[in-house]
């Protein structure tokens, strides 16, 4: 692992000066937020320091006066996960998705550099991996997902990059290794197999982007005619939003990409380059491949899944997702607990864009509860996916809980591929992500 860049003094000085200017603008833009700073002695624990945890923690420092806010997460490196598809397809260097977590912690917040091993919502405490019990008055759960690689027999994440095995999901290193595998594959071409699991997954557009980009890389290399690309979906579609699904299916038909539905990846023979799929009826099919991109099944991390915070019944119970009200993101049974990001057991929304819209709401709702008010805003489930269709073009798809397409700007046509959407993905969304993380937008 390459060393991460140190935050030097000059960068800090400029950042401080610039942040001051932006903060001044921010104060002008939202005077109500400044005026509403609430005095409190509340102990607030934020479990997780991904985008959701940091965005909410930062906002809470601005909304509350006197609160003791503690972030619990051992992660030393912060990864810009929306950039993984760009790294894994040879567009970005890996350095663009790696930052030091220490540089991103909000000031005035305590950081316990351990994982949460156990949630005790009845006792209002979390227990860290070393056994330390951390009491709280209010809790924000932002742990993200657990990738259940163990459900794929023979799968070895460490083998990604070898024998045509690829996956954009596990880490920046896996994204780099995936590009190495893709680059090697496109030189000769062959049989490419792309997978989608049956569980909810973060960035459900990523397997589609990888498929589009693989096809584009084969075309660029001149090996498309020697290749076959097939997408194996474990469910009855390739994307949960019907107009998007229909659009992608139509595009793939035109591009010669095959689709197999209700085929769940069951096992991988890495050395033998064979993938085994199983149908709902239990019929297994062995598929030889030269390139295999795996999107793993996902669930809540054990600490959430095994706690009383998880859904106990319904569609989200199997994955142990956090039982939050989808409108307020407040826990349905423990009213001093909120959820943000991928961990939430809500109909959609495991993307950074969801956090962009949800973090201000969660922070405000937590303040409301501290102040003795009912959470007053309603989250519409906003999610966005800049769906890359080839190098240089993408579609900017935004939608809500109900699957309605909800473009932020009226002139954006969600299903129209464009340079503008590509430019956003390529150059603008990481800056936007950093602004969300810093609690400014």
């Amino acid at each position, binding site marked *: 692992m390459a060393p991460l860049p140190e935050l030097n003094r000059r960068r800090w000085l400029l950042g401080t000066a610039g942040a001051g200017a932006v903060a001044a603008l921010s104060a002008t833009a939202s005077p109500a937020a400044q005026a509403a700073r609430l005095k409190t002695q509340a102990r607030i624990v934020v479990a997780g320091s991904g985008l959701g945890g940091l965005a909410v923690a930062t906002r809470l420092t601005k909304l509350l006066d006197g609160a003791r806010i503690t972030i619990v997460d051992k992660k030393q490196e912060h990864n810009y996960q929306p950039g993984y598809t760009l790294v894994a397809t040879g567009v970005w260097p890996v350095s663009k998705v790696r930052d030091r977590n220490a540089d991103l912690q909000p000031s005035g917040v305590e950081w316990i550099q351990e994982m949460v091993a156990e949630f005790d919502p009845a006792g209002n405490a979390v227990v860290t991996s070393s056994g330390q019990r951390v009491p709280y008055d209010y809790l924000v759960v932002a742990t993200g997902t657990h990738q259940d690689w163990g459900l794929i027999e023979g799968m070895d994440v460490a083998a990604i990059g070898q024998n045509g095995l690829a996956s954009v999901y596990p880490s920046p290193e896996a994204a780099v290794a995936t590009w190495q595998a893709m680059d090697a594959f496109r030189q000769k071409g062959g049989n490419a197999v792309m997978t989608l699991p049956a569980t909810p997954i973060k960035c459900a557009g990523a397997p589609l982007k990888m498929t589009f980009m693989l096809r584009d890389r084969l075309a660029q290399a001149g090996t498309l005619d020697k290749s076959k690309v097939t997408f194996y979906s474990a469910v009855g579609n390739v994307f949960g939003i019907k107009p998007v699904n229909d659009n992608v299916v139509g595009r793939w038909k035109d591009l010669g990409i095959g689709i197999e539905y209700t085929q769940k990846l069951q096992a991988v023979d890495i050395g033998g380059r064979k993938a085994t799929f199983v149908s709902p009826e239990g019929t297994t099919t062995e598929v030889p491949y030269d390139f295999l991109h795996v999107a793993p099944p996902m669930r809540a991390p054990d600490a959430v899944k095994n706690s009383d915070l998880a859904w106990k019944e319904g569609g989200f119970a199997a994955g142990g997702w956090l039982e939050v009200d989808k409108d307020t993101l407040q826990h349905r049974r423990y009213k001093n607990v909120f959820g943000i990001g991928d961990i939430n057991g809500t109909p959609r929304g495991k993307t950074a864009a969801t956090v962009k819209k949800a973090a201000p709401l969660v922070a405000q709702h937590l303040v409301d509860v501290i102040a003795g008010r009912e959470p007053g805003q309603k989250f519409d489930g906003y999610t966005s996916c800049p769906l890359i269709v080839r190098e240089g073009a993408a579609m900017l798809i935004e939608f809500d809980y109900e699957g309605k397409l909800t473009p932020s700007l009226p002139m954006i046509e969600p299903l129209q591929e464009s*340079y503008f959407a590509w430019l956003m993905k390529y150059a603008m969304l990481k800056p936007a992500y950093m602004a969300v993380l810093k609690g400014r937008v």
Partner: protein
Amino acid sequence: MYEIWLALNIVYEIALGLWPALLILLFVWLAVLVANRKGLASVSLTRLLAIAVVVAIAAGLALPTLTLSSFGNFGYWVDWANWLAMAAGAGVVAAVWVWPLMARRSR
């Protein structure tokens, strides 16, 4: 309003990544501006506009390639409108930057 605020933050975060170069350019520009402040009014607006147009054309031609795309990926009017705005912005910035330099030449 929110979209404008978001756009400002995006520009700020991008500038944060380029700050050493931007700072040098700003200091040079300020120094030349102060040194040639008396000649600023004598600079030909036509020449400044010509520079802006030339830079805008160059930036417009380079932008798609610099962002790993091409004009072939321009799908609808939003692409062209954004491209024009970015190219025009580059032209205006270039004209403002060379303005004090041209004031020096015209003294």
